[in-house]
Every structure is written in structure tokens, then in C-alpha cells.
């Protein structure tokens, strides 16, 4: 089959690879119809995630058709159209039983801090991902969901990660009526977090980034007030100034490990990977949010440690909430939002690229060329 394979930092290629097989009675084999490149895939692409092995296939956002099921699979059958959440969840560990599917304790042998994730290095379980023609889906009875007939496949694709993560980011902010919400990052997750903030009752939504075309997009899509941090001297002071010198009620970090804006953070977090990425957005979030406010973190960071002003968080009495999205838990609710027209997930897709051109797709997304926001890969078997 054709599959994306990692060859080293900033190098990927599409090549023939053996088709996956069922390896467990509750596995399903899925023929991929759509696969997206996530912003967090860029951390892998840039070689920043430990134990990212040459030859692995990325891709944790995908939809497909069930081709084969294992002997114990009860909830799926051959021919079902499915969306597959990025979390690999067993459904029976202490965390899955609490609906913390993003924290499954029985899907990743290599680490305990993170559950299994498709195509996200051996630090997240060593599973091949969906940027391929076929993918093995473990625990097929738990996370995968049949795509309702009235839901577009591109909307379903956005439900595998980006939309639930953005929604959960806003939800973890514990937004109350009229709150001012600041979202750091105008990528897909930040865009969905900004839109979700309104559904949760925000009174004002502000998005901070430095990429103008993305800011213009979110300004219209969310909608949101926008700030290009490169046009102001100090984002923290600016945010205080425009919120009556108090600070926003809620700050959301939708950037993670590769933030721009601080030479020191980039030097120590990316050039010399001494910390788990450049925590600039989180630094700004903690310092700008009001006293007693909430900081919600969904940006992805590495497993070591980061330079964040924890003393200020204590002195300000902040609540910090964070997690990988528990995708399965959000699906029914978000599907209702799509049906009601409250959110149009597929509208953020800017590029549809054949899987065979995956190297160019990654470069385009990584370098933010051609006003790229969300790139979808389409395998030859789905054309």
C-alpha cells in the first residue's frame, strides 16, 4: 500500500509499505478515505518528539471504511464508514471508565504519562497512523464511531481531533456568561477553541498569533478580535490594557511546543532541546490572565519540563487545566452542533492533496505557504 513514512527531521516520503494486519481479536482494518495533517504532527516532522523512528507512518486524524474486523469486534462491521478518534482507548482501565479516553492506561507500553495515539511516535505506543491507504485500528469497539449519513466526511474528519480538542480547550476554561477569552494560536485548534468559546457563553473572544492570514481567517470564522503579537511591544501588557488593566478571565494555550515570540524559549526549547519545547504561549497566558482566572492548555509539549512562571500562577490564584481531548466523549454533542449550524468544521480545510504528494503537503503546512490552514491527504484508493 502507499503510505507516508518518516525519514528524519523535515523529511518524509510516500512509498510502498506492507499492508497492516489484524494483530488482536478487537482490531479492525480500515481503508482510509481522508487523513489530515495536524499541527502536532509538525512536532514529529521537526524531529522534536523522542522515539520517532524512521519508517513510521504519521496520522492521527482520519476517516475510513472498515475492511476487516477481528473475532471479538461487536460494534463495527465490514463496510461501515467510520471516524477514528486519535486516542487509542481500551474502555476498561480505571481512566477509560471515567471517560478519560485520552488518558487510557492500557494502550501505550512505552510510557505511562500518555495514552496510545495513532502515528505519534513510540512515546505514544508505536502505532502506525492513518496517512496511508490502510491502518490497523486497535480496540475497535471503543473509540471509532460510525459516521452518521447526514454528516459530511470532511466534517467527520475534523471530529477526530481538531474540533474536540478546540471545544475541550474552551470547556476546560470554565467560561461563564460574558467572560473575556483569549486564545493563543490561530491554527485549527485555536480557531475551533475561539468558535467554541461563544457557544459556551463568552462575551468577548480575542485571538493572538503572528500569522496575518490565519488571524484574518479566525476574525471572520469565529468571529474574534485579533492581535498580531509582532505588531505590539509586550502581549501581556497589551492584553491587560484592553481588559481594563485586569486581564482576561480565561486564557487558552492552543500553540504548544513550537511557539514563536521569545528567542530564549526557542533557543532552549527547540534549537537546544533542553526543555520540552518553547513555552512562550503558556508563559503569556499565565502572566496575562486575571487573578483567579483560568488557563486551559491543549498545546502539545515534550515530556521533560518547561520554563513557565509557576510562581505567578500561585500568587494570582489561577486554575490551570489541561489534557489531551477525550474525543469519544464529545462526539455526540459536537455532531449536534454541526447539525444545528453552530459550527462548520470543514470550512477550515484549505488544501486537499493526494497522499503521493505528502512531502510537499508537510512542507507547505510547516512553512505556512499558500495561506495553508488545514491540509487533507487523500489516498489513491479513495479518489
Amino acid at each position: 500500500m502507499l503510505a507516508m513514512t518518516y525519514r528524519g527531521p523535515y523529511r518524509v516520503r510516500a512509498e510502498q509499505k506492507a499492508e497492516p494486519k489484524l494483530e488482536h481479536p478487537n482490531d479492525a482494518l480500515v481503508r482510509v478515505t481522508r487523513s489530515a495533517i495536524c499541527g502536532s504532527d509538525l512536532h514529529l516532522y521537526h524531529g522534536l518528539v523522542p522515539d520517532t523512528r524512521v519508517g513510521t507512518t504519521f496520522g492521527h486524524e482520519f476517516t475510513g471504511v472498515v475492511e476487516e474486523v477481528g473475532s471479538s469486534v461487536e460494534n463495527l462491521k465490514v463496510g461501515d464508514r467510520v471516524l477514528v478518534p486519535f486516542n487509542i482507548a481500551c474502555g476498561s482501565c480505571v481512566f477509560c471508565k471515567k471517560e478519560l479516553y485520552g488518558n487510557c492506561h492500557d494502550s501505550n507500553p512505552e510510557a505511562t504519562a500518555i495514552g496510545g495515539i495513532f502515528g505519534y511516535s513510540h512515546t505514544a505506543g508505536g502505532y502506525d497512523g492513518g496517512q496511508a491507504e490502510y491502518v490497523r485500528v486497535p480496540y475497535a469497539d471503543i473509540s471509532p464511531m460510525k459516521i452518521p449519513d447526514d454528516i459530511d466526511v470532511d466534517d467527520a474528519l475534523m471530529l477526530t481531533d481538531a474540533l474536540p480538542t478546540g471545544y475541550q480547550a474552551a470547556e476546560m476554561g470554565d467560561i461563564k456568561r460574558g467572560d473575556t477569552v483569549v486564545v493563543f494560536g490561530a491554527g485549527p485548534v485555536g480557531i475551533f477553541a475561539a468558535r467554541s468559546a461563544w457557544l459556551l457563553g463568552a462575551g468577548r473572544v480575542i485571538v493572538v498569533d503572528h500569522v496575518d492570514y490565519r488571524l484574518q481567517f479566525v476574525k471572520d470564522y469565529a468571529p474574534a478580535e485579533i492581535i498580531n503579537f509582532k505588531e505590539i511591544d509586550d502581549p501581556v501588557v497589551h492584553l491587560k490594557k484592553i481588559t481594563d488593566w485586569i486581564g482576561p478571565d480565561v486564557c487558552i494555550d492552543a500553540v504548544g511546543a513550537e511557539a514563536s515570540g521569545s528567542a530564549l524559549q526557542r533557543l532552549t526549547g527547540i534549537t537546544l532541546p533542553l526543555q520540552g519545547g518553547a513555552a512562550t504561549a503558556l508563559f503569556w497566558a499565565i502572566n496575562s490572565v486575571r487573578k483567579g482566572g483560568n488557563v486551559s492548555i491543549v498545546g502539545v509539549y515534550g515530556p521533560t519540563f518547561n520554563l513557565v512562571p509557576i510562581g505567578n500562577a500561585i500568587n494570582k490564584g489561577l486554575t490551570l487545566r489541561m489534557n489531551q481531548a477525550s474525543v469519544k466523549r464529545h462526539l455526540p454533542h459536537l455532531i449536534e452542533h454541526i447539525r444545528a449550524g453552530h459550527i462548520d468544521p470543514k470550512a477550515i480545510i484549505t488544501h486537499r492533496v493526494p497522499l503521493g504528494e505528502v512531502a510537499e503537503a508537510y512542507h507547505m503546512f510547516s512553512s505556512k505557504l499558500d495561506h495553508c490552514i488545514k491540509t487533507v491527504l487523500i489516498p489513491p484508493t479513495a479518489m
Partner: protein
Amino acid sequence: MEQSIRQTSVKGWGVDLDAAQRPAVPMEHTPPGGTGAHWEQPEPQFSGIRVFQSIERPAMTHVYGTSAPPRGISGRMRAYAYEFGEARLARWMTLLAADRVDVIEGLVDDLQRGKIPNIFAEMGLGAEWKYNKKALVRRALVGASAVAAGAFIVSSARKIARII
């Protein structure tokens, strides 16, 4: 800059104001209809490849990935890294170092299979040519100039050394 947005203009504003409408509130919640699991414990997966196990686990997980088994020097480095707990910097830095060694092993593997990797294509520079041609040409010229300058300096230094 005038940016104020009237919340009432946003379709669906406030529909999830009530905590009961928020699917992940409370954070820990037992689903009344179950999770979909029809087992107390999943059946174990068996495979013939080497899979590392965190020392913070008492046993292997019932399911695991089998992509890209450890190989060569990088594989030995990874085995060493997994002897450390997850809070230890030695584990993660060794894994990052192993990743870099793995890249070299990947190149050697390509050559052994008679494949000369097209690095430029793998870096997706076709997209740069398509969407950012000027910057690509500028970078290529700067690179070529740097190489030419370097060659000139080396050649001049040799001449001076011969004269001396």
C-alpha cells in the same frame, strides 16, 4: 482598531452555558451506557517483535503498536533509554540521540537496497518552488555564495601557505 463583536450575532451563542450541556463536565464521569468494552480485561496481543516497556508499568499493556521495531545502534540506545523512569532526562535525551542515529541508519538502509533518497523531494521543496519561488531562489543564491566564498578562502589560504 474597531473590532468589537456583538455576541448575539454569533449563531449558537451561549447554548452550552449550562454545565449540563458540557460533555466533559464533570471531568471524571462514569458513562451510564458503558464505554463499549465487553471485557473485564482485554485479551493480550502477541507479536514476535521487541517492544519496550516503561519501567513505571508492572506489566505489558494488552495492546501495543508494532511499527518500526528497534534496530542497529539506535535500537541499542533505545533499550538503554528505557531502563530509566519517565521523569529522568537521561531517558528522553538518549531517545532523541537515538532518533538522530536512526536517520543515518535509514540512509544506509536505503543505499543497501539500491535506493538513493531524493532528499530535496523528501523535504517537499517542490511546494517551496510552487508557492515561494523568490525566497527559495534567494536562499539558493545565498547558499551558493557561501559555498563559493568558502572555497575561495580555502584556496587562498593554501596559496598563502605555499608561499610562506
